[in-house]
């Protein structure tokens, strides 16, 4: 099981702050592609520029997923 979290504009577009997933692919990039393949808002939200994090560290699309991970998809940041 992994926990997936969506933040800010992504959360609003998807209408959910997150979900749990028992059956997940081997990398976060594949996970993003699978989520985008749900179509509709998912394809639009996850098809553009999205930052990815595992256990609160930014990662690239090849980063592997493992049991218990906290995965997050983040829009480009706008703080400061």
């Amino acid at each position: 099981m992994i926990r997936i979290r969506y933040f800010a504009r992504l959360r609003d577009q998807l209408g959910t702050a997150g979900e749990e997933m028992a059956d997940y692919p081997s990398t976060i990039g594949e996970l993003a592609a699978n989520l985008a393949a749900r179509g509709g808002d998912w394809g639009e939200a996850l098809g553009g520029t999205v930052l990815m994090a595992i256990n609160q560290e930014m990662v690239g699309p090849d980063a592997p997923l493992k049991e218990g991970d906290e995965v997050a998809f983040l829009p480009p940041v706008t703080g400061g």
Partner: protein
Amino acid sequence: MRRDIRVQTEPFDVGGETARLSAGDHSIGAVASFVGLVRAHNRVGDEHAEIATMTLEHYPGMTEKALDRIVDVAAERWSLQAVTVIHRVGELHLGEPIVLVLTASAHRQAAFESCQFIMDILKTEAPFWKKERLPDGSERWVDARESDGKAAARWLAGD
């Protein structure tokens, strides 16, 4: 190096934070500060729009880690005695302070440069998001700016 990193809803006192940063450490010869404020105008496409309020969201936990890592990199790059980073979240009004960065060093160049570095990297790597509310009550997420990416890339290009 001493560091004080905070994410909070409350306002901060620049004078008090500056005094606290350098208190008792007489090796410090320079303190640089940056204060970011909520601005009235933001560019939307080709039009300027006036905002009413702004709400800042963040990713609790990851935000503090990201700020800590940015300060780590600054401390490797410049000789610093102390750093303070305070970033506010929640609802903010026009003119209110959003972010404070203080850097303390023996000399001004390290203080100036590291202060700008921390802000430039924070703008592109720390997980904060701004949502603007316009006077008519409508809301929209602020888009990331290409110029912010360029400002951060300048430091990472190895000047």
